[in-house]
């Protein structure tokens, strides 16, 4: 292949005054602003771009758009590298680096090309059949090295990406002639219209016809462009719709590269969507049709019109469609030599340009040259003598495939058109219509009329046709092939995946019938191009081999994205910390100054512990826990879930929600409660306090508040709508500072809390609304540590200053902050339940000893009936018990299995929580154990990572069983 740049003024899309240069595999490539990577390479005569996926055959640029199967390059270096990018779809930029992905050690000398010599040994399904024994994984690494395409980036992508949502009345996808007309007509009838095009300029097919003076296309295009702008249509170019989703949602990717944002993802909701996505040319199939220099005819034409690039010095057109003749006329007008037109049909619909030889009823049967073409061999379909024609480029025009991807993704059906041999949209969808070539309308005037009517909202059936009669079959006859007198070369159906006509035939012979199975068996239609240029040829071939019409064979399912998309564009900046932003507590800064080691707990950033010097978390937590037992600790519990319940039926409603009875609470009193799902499983717990006759304060777990509020709302609105209740989640409005330890009240008294709140005056499990320092607070006496405890709930913005004041006053009492890990030690010593640690998706209240009083309760609370199911009454259920190491020194790891015989064997239970108790001087643990309540005093065997341990089953709490420390 020996492409070259045509003289000015050819090349409507390039700016010859702005030269640029970039590096391709170490070669300095010169181009102009407006060039794609592909057009610049072709303009410099570089035709050999890469090596094929499996056989490592030389491959070149095949198309001029996003359907490109072979012209794949890696763009950029290091972290900026984007692999397997279509050279035809990437704007050339000054200083960029483009590299071939799949060639080792270099493109010219690809050692893996030896695969091609053994091609006959590597048919479809080769890997499945060959590498079965003894194990595929033995072979996989080597095969992965050999196969595949580009190389991924070295690290996190440093580029910026963006996402925008948009609502429009009418979205028109594709700014070719039909799309522009539809957009114009919609705008003229008063609609707000957005028009998108995947290319850098509008015009589509019409823009590529400007070389043929008789087509008058440039004037028509200029006129349409002017009218569209005047009608107020907003046009966005370089923006490809990747997929259509429910209710007219289009997701589009815009290439921006403005120095700040690389790509922008658009989520566009439209009342109506008009598809004008055009058509993709269908290549002719002939031996060695994969050689660099064999290209789609429309691409050869576009390189000439848009970029002023001749793809070869002598071009042969292989066609089965009248559009091949139009391309010949364009090339002729640009002064590019067309050596011949090889038409597989017996008659042609259009005349060839003067002086161009036409071979009717003939096919190409051989292509000579490996990395570049030097000639093609033509033979009559009936046989006879073959004739060689010197040429360096073959323009292949086998008909057209309407780009029905989006129609199909939206659930639209397809219909096979026998005349033009293509699938067209069947009935239009609700809110989604197709116009122009993607609807099968190839006759310009009729297509424009139809687009106009559609744009105005008067949908009529699309005028399918305009290509004349195009045969489905695109392969040379056996008679033509036999003229070679030797075995013909491989005919490639899918250039990207190295799937040949032989592979399709083999699949048919092995009784593959479904086109979906054909795809998976041969890999036809997979990877970056998704078979845009190969699917129709493959299914026609499959139909021939299995004696079925293409309509019966059908297409594979179209799925988004229409073209490969950078994962980062989909993430649109939601990476790293922004992937799931963590909540910070109102006292965050105070914890920082006190050396808090922050970790994530249920979406909150909280101090796990306050490590001193080089202390590890666990020893720090043990020290903090012991300090709470002996002195006083300060803890921020702001993430604790808080919900307020108001209304005349609040008490009755809570009786329906909780296992316990809340309606009997006196004002100011608080009670622990368990929440169940309707299937009886524990799903949250916490304290309920009554603030007034019709007003309750609810604490939930920190991680569970959203689902508790959701469940309450669902029950209230859907099942107990007659209960007059308001449910208000207030977690983030209230801070929570907890003071625990024998000196807790001493600290609060010194900090100015009123004597009426002292332990004898304010009872455990009560809540008071009082003023402190002029701020209204809700003070609760409760304890998750077993020590005297006050939970101070206050407006969130005062949390920081309260923590500050308590730590200043607290110096006198050696008050120290304690973190989540210390809290876990304290509550384990007390045997208090920690939801999600001691319970799982099967735990019922009886399993944790919390089913007392249910029988006496009146309300049919959520989950109650499920506690009577046979599974709930099973005597073998696991129950929560305490464990002490038999030697009183070995720690019992969380997750350790309680076993009766050596694993693998069914287990008797498992350790759910474990801690070293400083105050007891030994490790303690909680465990779920089969029939556990009846096994107190037993010694059991624990198995953990190959180690066995002995432990004694004991009652909890481990510490202060009588609860005497609650009073300080």
């Amino acid at each position: 292949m020996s492409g070259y740049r045509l003289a000015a003024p050819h090349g409507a899309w390039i700016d010859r005054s702005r030269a640029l240069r970039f590096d391709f595999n170490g070669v300095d490539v010169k181009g102009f602003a407006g060039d794609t990577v592909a057009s610049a390479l072709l303009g410099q005569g570089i035709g050999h771009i890469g090596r094929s996926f499996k056989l490592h055959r030389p491959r070149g640029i095949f198309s001029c758009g996003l359907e490109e199967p072979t012209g794949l390059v890696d763009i950029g270096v290091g972290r900026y590298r984007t692999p397997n990018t279509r050279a035809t779809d990437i704007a050339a930029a000054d200083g960029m680096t483009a590299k071939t992905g799949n060639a080792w050690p270099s493109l010219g000398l690809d050692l893996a090309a030896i695969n091609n010599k053994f091609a006959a040994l590597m048919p479809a399904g080769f890997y499945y059949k060959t590498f079965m024994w003894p194990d595929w994984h033995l072979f996989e690494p080597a095969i992965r090295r050999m196969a595949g395409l580009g190389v991924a980036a070295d690290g996190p992508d440093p580029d910026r990406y963006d996402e925008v949502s948009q609502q429009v009345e009418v979205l028109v996808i594709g700014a070719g002639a039909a799309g522009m007309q539809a957009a114009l007509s919609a705008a003229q009838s008063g609609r707000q219209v957005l028009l998108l095009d995947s290319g850098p300029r509008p015009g589509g097919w019409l823009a590529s016809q400007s070389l043929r003076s008789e087509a008058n296309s440039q004037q028509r295009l200029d006129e349409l462009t002017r009218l569209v702008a005047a009608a107020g249509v907003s046009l966005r170019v370089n923006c490809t719709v990747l997929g259509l989703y429910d209710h007219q949602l289009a997701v589009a990717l815009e290439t921006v590269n403005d120095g700040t944002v690389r790509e922008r993802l658009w989520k566009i909701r439209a009342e109506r969507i008009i598809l004008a996505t055009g058509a993709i040319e269908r290549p002719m199939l002939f031996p060695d049709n994969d050689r660099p220099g064999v290209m789609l005819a429309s691409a050869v034409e576009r390189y000439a019109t848009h970029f002023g690039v001749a793809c070869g010095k002598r071009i042969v057109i292989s066609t089965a469609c009248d559009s091949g003749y139009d391309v010949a006329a364009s090339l002729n007008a640009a002064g590019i030599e067309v050596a011949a037109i090889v038409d597989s049909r017996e008659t042609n619909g259009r005349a060839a340009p003067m002086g161009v030889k036409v071979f009717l009823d003939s096919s190409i049967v051989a292509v000579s040259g490996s990395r570049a073409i030097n000639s093609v061999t033509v033979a009559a379909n009936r046989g006879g003598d073959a004739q060689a024609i010197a040429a360096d480029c073959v323009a292949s025009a086998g008909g057209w495939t309407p780009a029905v991807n989006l129609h199909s993704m939206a659930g639209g059906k397809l219909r096979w058109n026998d005349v033009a041999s293509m699938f067209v949209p069947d009935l239009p969808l609700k809110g989604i219509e197709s116009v122009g070539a993607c609807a099968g309308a190839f006759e310009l005037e009729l297509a424009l009329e139809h687009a106009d009517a559609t744009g105005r909202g008067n949908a009529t059936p699309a005028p399918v046709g305009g290509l004349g009669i195009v045969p489905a079959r695109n392969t040379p006859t056996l008679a033509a092939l036999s003229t070679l007198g030797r075995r013909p070369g491989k005919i490639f159906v899918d250039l990207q995946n190295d799937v040949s006509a032989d592979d399709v035939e083999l699949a048919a012979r092995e009784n593959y019938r479904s086109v979906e199975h054909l795809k998976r068996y041969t890999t036809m239609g997979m990877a970056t191009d998704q078979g845009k240029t190969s699917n129709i040829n493959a299914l026609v071939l499959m139909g021939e081999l299995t004696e079925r019409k293409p309509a019966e064979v059908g297409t594979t399912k179209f799925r988004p994205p229409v073209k490969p998309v950078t994962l980062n564009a989909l993430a649109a900046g939601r990476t790293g910390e922004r992937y799931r932003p963590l909540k910070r507590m109102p006292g965050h800064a105070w914890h920082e100054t006190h050396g808090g080691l922050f970790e994530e707990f249920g979406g909150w950033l909280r101090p796990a512990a306050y490590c001193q010097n080089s202390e590890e978390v666990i020893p720090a937590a043990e020290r903090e826990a012991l300090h709470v037992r002996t002195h006083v600790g300060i803890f921020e519990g702001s993430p604790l879930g808080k919900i307020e319940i108001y209304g005349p039926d609040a008490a009755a409603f809570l009786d329906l929600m909780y296992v316990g009875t809340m309606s009997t609470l006196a004002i100011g009193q608080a009670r622990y409660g368990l929440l169940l799902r309707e299937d009886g499983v524990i799903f949250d717990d916490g304290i309920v306090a009554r603030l007034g006759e019709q007003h309750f304060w609810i604490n939930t777990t920190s991680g569970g508040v959203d689902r508790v509020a959701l469940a309450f709302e669902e029950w209230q609105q859907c099942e107990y709508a007659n209960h007059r209740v308001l449910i208000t989640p207030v977690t983030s409005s209230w801070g929570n500072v907890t003071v625990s330890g024998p000196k807790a009240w001493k600290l609060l008294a010194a900090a100015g809390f009123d004597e009426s709140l002292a332990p004898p005056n304010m009872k455990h499990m009560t809540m008071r609304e009082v003023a402190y320092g002029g701020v209204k607070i809700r003070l609760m006496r409760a304890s998750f540590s077993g020590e005297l405890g006050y939970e101070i709930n206050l407006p969130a913005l005062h949390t920081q200053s309260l923590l500050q004041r308590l730590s200043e006053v607290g110096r006198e009492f050696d008050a120290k902050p304690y973190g989540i890990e210390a809290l876990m030690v304290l509550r384990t010593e007390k045997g208090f339940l920690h939801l999600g640690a001691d319970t799982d998706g099967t735990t019922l209240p009886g399993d944790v000893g919390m089913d007392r009083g249910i029988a006496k309760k009146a309300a049919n609370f959520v989950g109650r009936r499920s506690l009577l199911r046979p599974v709930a009454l099973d005597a073998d259920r696991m129950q929560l018990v305490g464990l002490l190491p038999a030697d009183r020194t070995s720690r019992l790891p969380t997750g350790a299995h309680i076993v009766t015989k050596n694993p693998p064997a069914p287990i008797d239970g498992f350790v759910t929580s474990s801690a070293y108790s400083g105050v007891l001087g030994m490790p303690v643990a909680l465990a779920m154990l089969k029939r556990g309540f009846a096994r107190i005093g037993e010694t059991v065997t624990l198995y953990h990572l190959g180690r066995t341990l002995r432990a004694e089953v004991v009652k909890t709490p481990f510490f202060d069983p009588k609860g005497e420390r609650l009073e300080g």
Partner: protein
Amino acid sequence: MMQLQCPWCGRRPENEFHCGGTTAIVRPPIDCSDEVWGNYLFFRKNPKGLHAERWRHTFGCGQWFNIVRDTVTHEVGAVYGITEAQPRAVDP
């Protein structure tokens, strides 16, 4: 992503809502058989076609409401109050 017509807030994208599954399932009394309770807890029809289901406009007004949705085409027919009966002869 669908768009749903919240009776209070109007047409909004699906990700503002939370689907609560089949609507108007009657909660059996406490003295029902295990089989009746089991059916209530675990068994749903999962129809291909029209399905009456409840949704909550979680990131909006927080209200539950009912819709009839075609599970094949995602077309939404009737939208009605959470305690209202399903309108008859709904043809989306």
